[in-house]
């Protein structure tokens, strides 16, 4: 569905945001073993605008990449960070893993402040990059993993057993001694997952793990994440992706990021309630211009509308509405009155992608209206 879908402009409901909201008390002294494996409080990140030497000397205001992020990820869940490119997902991942320092606010991972206790945080996390260029390519995957196992202080014998088990888990046993410059992109990505799990982390951060993969390899990796990565709910996973289908398939809960702000956080069902578009009708129509179809958006009960060309000179109209509204008969009557031919009309669930666009649009509307936004 296109971004011309629109909502009634209301902010996400308090109930949807509540599971993610934490009291802002005793932030700097939160002990290890906190209720949430990952927490952020008013987290901001600003990058300098200057470059090169000027960047070193500059101290002025820069580009705001994270804008007051409040999140709380529950133990054992796969929590998705969804958003378009440049939304701030990778920046948030890097702040949580200690690769970037926040400009403001607080972030706790496994109960430790990511700035003050970076070493403790790094002992407890694994990071899976979407970038395939993160290995020593002239070494085999087993040699790479053995090197990283030593950096994690895993005893030699235990490391060997763990590497064997992980390579088996990601299906790379046969290629264990093959140099990684001979690996396919999919194999490198599976190796990255094995490395992320090497220290048996409490928390696994996965930054677009299927970004460089073809559809088949992506499906395999997704199946693997769903089946094996959470280790029966013992491990918490924070998954950043810009693929809505990935978020829908894998995540227990998710946060929608746009321009560094959380537009929504909660389950997909909660998101549907928040958006207030309770049903979507797909209407197949012909014999009418798309401009006239777009005018249907002006009907009071229409909450969202998109028009897409379909086969045999037809158009598919996706119409978002509340469940009890009589908007669909009204629309069909109007289409027929204007000379259109209605081939079919069927209700369906909103996809996550459609929800995403609705949420983003809602967020943009609020910002344009000077609202505080939908940060939960």
């Amino acid at each position, binding site marked *: 569905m296109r971004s011309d879908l629109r909502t009634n402009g209301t902010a996400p409901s308090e109930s949807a945001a509540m599971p993610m909201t934490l009291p802002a008390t005793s932030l700097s002294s939160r002990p290890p073993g906190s209720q949430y494996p990952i927490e952020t409080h008013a987290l901001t990140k600003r990058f300098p605008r200057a470059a090169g*030497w000027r960047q070193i000397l500059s101290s002025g205001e820069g580009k705001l990449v994270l804008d007051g992020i409040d999140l709380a990820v529950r133990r054992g869940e796969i929590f998705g960070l969804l958003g378009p490119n440049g939304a701030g997902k990778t920046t948030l991942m890097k702040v949580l893993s200690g*690769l970037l*320092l926040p400009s403001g606010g607080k972030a706790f991972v496994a109960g430790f402040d990511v700035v003050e206790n970076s070493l403790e945080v790094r002992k407890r996390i694994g990071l899976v990059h979407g970038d395939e260029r*993160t290995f020593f390519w002239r*070494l085999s995957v087993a040699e790479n993993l053995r*090197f990283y196992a030593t950096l*994690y202080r895993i005893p030699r014998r235990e490391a060997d057993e763990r590497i064997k088990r992980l390579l088996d888990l990601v299906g790379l046993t046969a290629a264990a001694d093959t140099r990684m410059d001979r690996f396919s992109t999919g194999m490198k990505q599976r190796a990255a997952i094995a490395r992320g799990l090497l220290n048996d982390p409490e928390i696994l951060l996965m930054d677009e793990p299927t970004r460089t993969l073809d559809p088949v390899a992506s499906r395999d990796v997704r199946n693997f994440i769903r089946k094996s990565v959470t280790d029966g709910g013992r491990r918490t996973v924070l998954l950043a992706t810009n693929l809505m289908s990935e978020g829908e398939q894998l995540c227990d809960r998710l946060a929608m990021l746009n321009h560094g702000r959380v537009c929504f956080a909660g389950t997909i069902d909660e998101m549907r309630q928040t958006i207030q578009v309770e049903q979507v009708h797909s209407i197949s129509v012909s014999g009418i211009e798309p401009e006239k179809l777009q005018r249907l958006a002006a009907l009071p009960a229409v909450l969202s509308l998109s028009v897409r060309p379909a086969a045999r000179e037809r158009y598919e109209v996706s119409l978002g509405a509340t469940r009890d509204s009589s908007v669909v008969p009204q629309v069909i009557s109007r289409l027929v009155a204007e000379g259109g031919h209605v081939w079919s009309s069927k209700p369906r669930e909103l996809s996550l992608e459609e929800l995403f666009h609705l949420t983003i649009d809602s967020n943009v509307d609020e910002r344009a209206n000077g609202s505080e936004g939908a940060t939960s």
Partner: protein
Amino acid sequence: MSTVTLAFLRRDLLIWSSYRTSVVSFALGAAVMIGIVYFLGQVVEADSDVLDEYGGDYVAFLLSGFAFVDLFNRGLSALPGMIREQQQNGTLEPLLVTPTRLVEFVVGSSLFSLILSSGRAILMLLFGVIFLGFWRDADPVSMLIVLIPGAVAVFALSILFSAVVILIKRADPIVAAYSLMTAILGGLLFPVEALPFWIRPFSWFVPLSHALSGLRLGLAGHPPSTVLPEVVALLALSAVLLPLSIVSFNWALSRAKQDGTLVQY
């Protein structure tokens, strides 16, 4: 040496040995350097008075100079080079996510390169001893007490240049210019005493000049008391450079983490 440092060493050895020509180019490098030194020693007529203190032979003077300057320069560029390489090949970020301590990372990243250069320096010195009859009366204690503070000073400079790499990415020209300058001021081709009077004070601030002078004196068989002034100078320089370099490196790392430029290349 910690297991983490050894892991870096093993990694670099495996990568180095994965190139088929590594051993050949290593041996060839040493052979070419010996050839150049021998040629220079034969064609340049050196003032033997200036060289008396160092054994009097210009080939011996050059050979020891090239061996140690190569070692020190490699020590200087190993860490910044490794950081730059890892920024470019994308392996720096996964390393920094592990609970590796800064000192382990710094030492581990430069160790293999230093061992390789030490091997080349030893080969060159052994060539001088076995085939040219130099340094038969060398004093190893004198050499050792110079080598240790010299290595610390070079290590500190290396950390300082790494801070530059982290901040501006390209420190190669700076390292190259510094290496060339110190090779001249440090006495690679001729003793510092032969430099014009007004330049000599600059060489006092160059760790290489003290290290090279002390090591050559040790090779010539001078007792530890003779090299003591060089040791004191190196200790003084290290006392300034080491804290300065650690503070600079931490500041650069923190700045890069703030700016998001840590793994930019």
